[in-house]
């Protein structure tokens, strides 16, 4: 069953009308699946433009293979994988595993829904086909208890080793705690004595040492742990352990209203907090079919680009610090401070802004915003130039970054890499270009792509992206700020003006219900995504019609980037790890959620 929407409003909307049954037949994915696997399909829907196919669990591997290699489909990227517990929706079976696929060549998407058995939810692992399935399936196991058959290493990833139960299940109480009694090795099955610097004899008679890099470490920005087996200075093997900053974001959102989720999103990629706000706002706007006024879009896009610049400033600045080039850190944190001042003038906060709202932004920008923004934007190129002069052609920098941590294009796609790290490996995919939103289709900017896939190219891509972001900002500023409201005039989602709230009962009731009860969205599921500083950041939202989201999953680019870490590190030197980690820009808030 699909919904056919009314006329599609302007380019500010990032969702499409649902297709009806006839139109669905013409979609290549539907055609191919119906002809190759007619008996596997349990249902096909198209809601808000998201194509979703429900298939039998036994057929998952074959269907996935078709999706990957069929010439018309070519779904080379498993973008996201998450679990669902439909217990409170009264559905049977209770569990589903949700897959989102993307084709970087055909530029189409599909969602697969696989219902799983209540008593023993189990399905084939997709790790043989896409490397990104590895950590994503571990997370679905951790949170829901799904068993992925033939997964190479199915163990918990975000919660600790002594955790009991599956926390995102609806019958798991949110306040149940489990204490961890001791540290464990990140290598499964390794005795605890090998925690510290233990020397072991390898089969070849050579000594190797287990060393913990992190979680407390000045160069792992955020609490990340890599337990490395060192062969001298080389990393012979490693296990990356995450979850130190896991704050059960997804579970908390189930007990808060849609607006109350905004402060939680700030704390995902906290280096560029506003981008998370907008990503979330767009998801709810897609579900509720809310049109954002052009003034709000203008504000959002400019601030998103400033946030992108901020993120890259931190990424490169700290990366260079880790390699010993301290001056560049100061050179980059000075313009970052100026951007903070601009954001503070808009909403009062610097880091965790909660400035986005469903339908626009929380409040209007100040009178002098254009001048202030222009001054801020004009102050930045100088610092980019300083760092470029100091670092790019510097012999030490070149030796530490060229050819270090090479990831091929195919590998990057298999790992689900998007954003600057993906583009540095030759994957020409930027959501702003491929699936425009926020007016990007009307703007002139280049998307830098390099082919070497090493640390140096990741640095270069980010440097160039900052220059391109400045181009976008100037174009938007030159157009002038559109007149109109800063948030949609829709009583379903936007708070009425305070003046009205105090003078008429309707506005008072409206305000009251929106705050205490939240929105009343339609029942449905959507996936919405933006190009955040680290790549495709998406939200998969399931609404049950009440004021609180039933389920919310954040597709975090850092999660998929970091999953490749162990493979990347094999054979590299410890110092290389530090250089590589900086360019991956792993933000723990986004990684662990």
């Amino acid at each position, binding site marked *: 069953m699909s919904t056919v929407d009314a006329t599609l409003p302007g380019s500010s909307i990032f969702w499409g009308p649902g297709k009806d049954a006839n139109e669905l037949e013409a979609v290549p994915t539907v055609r191919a699946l119906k002809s190759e696997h007619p008996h596997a399909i349990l249902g096909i829907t198209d809601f808000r433009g998201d194509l979703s196919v429900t298939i039998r669990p036994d057929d998952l591997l074959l269907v996935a293979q078709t999706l990957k290699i069929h010439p018309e489909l070519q779904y080379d990227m498993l973008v996201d994988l998450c679990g669902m517990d439909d217990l409170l929706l009264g559905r049977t079976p209770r569990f589903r595993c949700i897959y989102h696929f993307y084709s970087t060549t055909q530029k189409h998407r599909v969602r697969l829904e696989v219902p799983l058995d209540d008593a023993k939810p189990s399905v084939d692992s997709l790790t043989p086909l896409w490397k990104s399935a590895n950590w994503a399936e571990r997370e679905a196991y951790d949170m829901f208890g799904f068993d992925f058959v033939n997964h190479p290493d199915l163990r918990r990833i975000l919660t600790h080793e002594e955790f009991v139960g599956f926390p995102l299940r609806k019958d798991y109480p949110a306040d149940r705690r489990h204490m961890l009694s001791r540290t464990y090795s990140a290598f499964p099955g390794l005795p605890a004595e090998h925690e510290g610097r233990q020397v072991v004899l390898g089969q070849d008679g050579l000594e190797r040492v287990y060393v913990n890099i992190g979680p407390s470490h000045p160069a792992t920005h955020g609490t990340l742990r890599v337990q490395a087996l060192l062969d001298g200075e080389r990393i012979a093997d490693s296990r990356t352990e995450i979850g130190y900053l896991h704050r059960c974001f997804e579970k908390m959102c189930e007990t808060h209203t849609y607006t109350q989720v905004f402060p939680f999103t700030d704390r995902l990629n906290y280096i560029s907090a506003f981008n998370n706000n907008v990503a979330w706002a767009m998801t709810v706007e897609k579900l509720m079919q809310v049109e954002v006024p052009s003034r709000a879009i203008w504000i959002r896009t400019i601030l998103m680009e400033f946030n992108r610049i901020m993120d890259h400033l931190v990424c490169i600045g700290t990366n260079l610090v880790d390699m010993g080039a301290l001056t560049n850190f100061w050179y980059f944190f000075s313009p970052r401070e100026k951007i903070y001042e601009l954001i503070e003038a808009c909403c009062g906060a610097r880091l965790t802004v909660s400035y986005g709202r469903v339908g626009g932004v929380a409040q209007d920008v100040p009178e002098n915003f254009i001048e202030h923004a222009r001054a801020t934007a004009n102050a930045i190129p100088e610092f980019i130039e300083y760092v470029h002069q100091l670092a790019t052609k510097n012999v030490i920098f070149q030796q530490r970054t060229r050819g270090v941590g090479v990831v091929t294009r195919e590998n990057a796609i298999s790992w689900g890499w998007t954003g600057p790290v993906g583009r540095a490996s030759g994957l020409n995919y930027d959501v702003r270009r491929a699936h425009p939103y926020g007016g990007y289709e009307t703007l002139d900017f280049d998307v830098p792509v390099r082919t070497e896939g090493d640390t140096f190219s990741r640095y270069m891509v980010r440097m160039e992206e900052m220059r391109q972001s400045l181009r976008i900002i100037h174009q938007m500023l030159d157009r002038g700020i559109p007149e109109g409201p800063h948030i949609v005039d829709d009583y379903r989602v936007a708070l009425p003006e305070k003046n009205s709230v105090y003078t008429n009962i309707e*506005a008072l009731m409206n305000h009251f219900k929106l705050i205490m009860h939240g929105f009343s969205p339609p029942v449905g599921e959507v996936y919405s995504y933006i190009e955040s500083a680290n790549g495709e950041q998406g939200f998969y939202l399931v609404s049950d019609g009440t004021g609180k989201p039933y389920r919310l999953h954040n597709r975090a680019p850092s999660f998929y980037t970091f999953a490749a870490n162990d493979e990347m590190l094999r054979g590299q030197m410890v110092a290389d790890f530090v250089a590589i980690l900086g360019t991956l820009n792993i933000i723990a808030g986004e990684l662990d959620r």
Partner: protein
Amino acid sequence: MVNLTIDGKTVAAPKGTNVLEAAKLVGIRVPNFCYHQDLSWEGSCRMCLVAIEGRPKLVPSCCEEVKDGMIVQFERPDAREARKSQLEFLLVNHPLDCPICDQAGECKLQDYYMEHGGYDSKMPRDLKVHKRKVVDLGERIVLDKERCVLCSRCVRFCREVSGSHALQFFTRGVTTEIGTENNQPITGDDYIGNVVDICPVGALTSKDFRFKQRVWFLKSAESVCNSCSTGCNIRVDHKDGVTYRYVPRRNEDVNKSWMCDYGRDSYRRETEDRVPAPMVREGAALREATWEEALDLVASRTQAAGPDAVAIVGSPRQTNETSWITRRYARDVVRTPHFDARVDGSHTKTALLADNLLRRQDPHPNNAGLAALGMIPQGGGPDVGGILDACMAGKVKVLHLLGTEILTHRHDTARVHDALKKVPFVVLHAHHNVPGLDELAHVVFADAGHLEQQGTYVNALGRVQRAQLAYLIRTGALVM
């Protein structure tokens, strides 16, 4: 059955149903203020207007009986517009009270504005008509005349259900208001608490609940009132182990949408003066003990006394589940001939009404359950009166009482005290402190409250009803 179409969906409804109820059958929630399932059809609020084919004007669906072939449109633009405008009219003089109004969170005006309104108001606040805001209408009700939308539900309730005619309309036009004659307090109506439930706005509020808690923080449990044998179905609203109110739950066959005020108040008994933990006598007084100590003591004394010297008395306040275990204990474990549960004569009055509405003369919820379980003496054993005589005669060494009604609900309390004093070991299951507990009991088992356990009760008409657990026990009590 009558067949009609509503918004393109076919419905089959029994003859005599109104269109509003028929719409409910296909999931369409028609807004309404004056309509109530258990009151007469009024049609005055005009919120339920729908379009019916062949009719020149919109029709109030709450007063319109379904007819074969009727084609109803709820979502027609003019019907939607009418609902929106009607809401606007109702809100013209409504005060800006949401922040201080108890009804917030369960207010129809709020809900309907979000669902059917959404317009921008043009009413200047200074032009609103004002009325008296805090009118004390007696022990239970506070009236705010400004908030009233004149739906007449309370007037019809007092006329048709409780018969007290306590609330009436006064004056006319824009100054029309609800109230009592001279704003006198309401007395003599044991069902007046129900008007608070049916008032769709915050005009009539409960004095007991006023300002105590915001409703969206409350959790609910479905239970059964235990203050008489009618067993009205209730909803228990609680938070963090504290009950804030009982609200009647609709049951077509037992209590419709109503409950009496005694029942409403009875939630307080659940937390007042609780026995916190098992008590054991030491010298002249009772002291707290562990469950192990108390249970061991009772078990050893019961065993030592032998079956003929033990008497066990059940309780019509206990659930069927507890009573069943009591029966097993008495007949199969202890094997005493002294076993009865007809503690205070209330079982003879179980079916008798105390007023002409709901309340019955039997103040206990489960006499009928005890009868169904056969909790009476077998083989010629003594009834409760006989057991008391046996105690007086010194034949009973251990007396085990499953409740405290023998001390509180009998007329011959002096005789009961004398009899119990003669028993060397008295065990009582007590929920809260009662007079006589201190002097007479040797062991007190701290009982779980009605809301702290799940169980079933059988009401006066033989209906088995389930009471859900509201919250877990927070004292040292146990479900016995």
